[in-house]
């Protein structure tokens, strides 16, 4: 493919010859010769199409990580390469290696769909342009805070052994009761102080630890694209959901997810790492868009229809719509335990607007606190520091 410069040089050459005829002067013709020589040079040094190979070490990263891309370019000339992550430009002689470090600033997915390769010869007169199909992807997971303990306790536990203290007696850590020794009881469980007092063998009883179901209900309906503050709250909400999901997947309990955005998206409760990756993968696609008019009832319906009763529902919502309160009451009536985690950016400023917003929010929170546990989370502070003050929820 010839470049525009090639045609420009040809036109320069022709125009200068024409000027030479018009003004009957040889000087324009003399000045046209360098362009001809440049064209001849480029004709005799034809460049081959360039080849590009890209590699990166991992496919999964966390926000803030740096990906080290390595591009191997094969060709002789100037190049301009653009893919979904990087843009390279420079000169390559035969084989060269370009390295690029990319800091992943926001969670999401980088999908490599196409790569644009533009290559010019050393005089810029011949070019190769191709837009080839590209493959591969990089998943950037939300930044997860390390949570040592998240004191929640579902109302009803499942039969499998897990980390939640249940109402059943059995092998566990949490002390529950003392009873008289029965043949077959473990000698290590004898409570010697109680035995001395009662003058007969007494043993400790413990709460059995079982698994439970937890549902993370993420409300992202009222975030619109372009607002920096909403963007921050959305990011914080997603990070909170990811942190809680990761913690719960470690506790051998089942964890599910419901996302309320422009539509309802949900994942049925699952155990372990599978649950964690399913939820994290789904969270990658949460983005601010235009404001959704989806009522909260859809979320309530999904939870009550598809998730087991007595599950523990963690609602992450900035409480920007008024239909949440009634839905929370209805879920409680259907025997779901609810923890409302409400991220906000309303600070301590003293202007009138902030004052009104703060009061309005306080009213909402007070009303919700009548029925459920509410955590008011200013996203300027880490989630774990806010949850530390939370008492064990029963």
């Amino acid at each position, binding site marked *: 493919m010839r470049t525009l410069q090639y045609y*420009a040089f040809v036109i320069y050459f022709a125009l200068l010859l024409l000027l030479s005829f018009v003004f009957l002067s*040889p*000087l324009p013709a003399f*000045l046209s*010769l360098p362009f001809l020589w*440049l064209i*001849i040079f480029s004709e005799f040094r034809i460049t081959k199409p360039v080849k590009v190979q890209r590699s990166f070490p991992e496919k999964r990263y966390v926000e803030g990580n740096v990906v080290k891309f390595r591009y191997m370019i094969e060709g002789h000339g*100037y190049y301009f390469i653009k893919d979904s992550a990087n843009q390279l430009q420079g000169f390559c002689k035969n084989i060269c290696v370009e390295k690029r470090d990319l800091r992943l600033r926001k969670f999401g997915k980088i999908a490599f769909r196409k790569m644009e390769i533009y290559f010019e010869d050393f*005089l810029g007169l011949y070019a*190769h342009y191709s837009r080839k199909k590209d493959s591969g992807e990089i998943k950037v997971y939300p930044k997860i805070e390390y949570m040592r303990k998240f004191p929640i306790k579902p109302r009803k536990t499942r039969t499998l052994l897990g980390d939640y203290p249940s109402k059943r007696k059995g092998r566990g850590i949490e002390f529950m009761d003392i009873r008289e020794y029965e043949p077959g009881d473990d000698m290590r469980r004898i409570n010697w102080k109680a035995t001395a007092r009662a003058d007969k063998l007494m043993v400790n009883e413990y709460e059995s630890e079982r698994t439970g179901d937890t549902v993370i209900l993420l409300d992202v309906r009222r975030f619109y694209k372009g607002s920096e503050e909403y963007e921050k709250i959305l990011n914080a909400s997603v990070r909170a959901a990811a942190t809680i999901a990761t913690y719960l997947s470690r506790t051998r309990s089942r964890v599910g997810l419901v996302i309320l955005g422009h539509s309802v998206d949900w994942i049925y409760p699952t155990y372990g790492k599978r649950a964690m990756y399913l939820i994290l993968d789904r969270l990658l696609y949460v983005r601010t868009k235009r404001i959704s008019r989806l009522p909260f009832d859809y979320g309530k319906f999904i939870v009550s229809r598809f998730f087991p009763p007595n599950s523990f529902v963690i609602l992450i919502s900035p409480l920007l719509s008024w239909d949440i309160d009634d839905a929370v009451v209805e879920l409680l009536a259907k025997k779901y335990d609810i923890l409302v985690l409400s991220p906000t950016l309303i600070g301590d400023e003293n202007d009138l607007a902030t004052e009104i917003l703060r009061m309005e929010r306080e009213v909402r929170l007070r009303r919700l606190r009548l029925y459920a546990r509410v955590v008011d989370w200013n996203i300027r502070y880490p989630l774990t520091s806010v949850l530390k003050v939370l008492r064990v929820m029963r």
Partner: protein
Amino acid sequence: MKRSIWISLGIYFFLLLLLSSYSLRIFLLSAMTISIAVLLLILYRIIESEIFFYAYNFTGITALLISLKNYNPYSWVTLGVAYSVLSILLIHLYLYRFFQKFGTIKRETLAYLLLATLLSFFSVQIFMMGSIGYGFWGAVGLGVAILILLYFLIQPKSKESSDST
């Protein structure tokens, strides 16, 4: 390095004005052409259409022709000056284009530019002032030969050149 783009253009325009300073009329004509070139350059900076880029460069070449209007075109000194000044413009053209597109320019490219002007100087000396031809008709003869050469060169290249992997 990017400063050199504008330094080269500034030197080029300054030399044009210097060369045309022997006559007020030529000087004013050159100044006017230079201002048109600058105007086209500003338009290029605003619109960013490559057509304007080549337009202002060609206007620059026209300004060179005007500046050297009353010089003897067959004098090797005139030719030497003309090619030297033209090579400054070509360097500007290449610096600007390559820095903008690829962020770099290699010595190889600049070497070929200077080689092209040197070869042009010698080809004029051999073809138009030597035994092959003389004066206007020598130039016409060379022009015709070049046109025939170009006709063959402009033929489309093989298809494989457009494939890239």
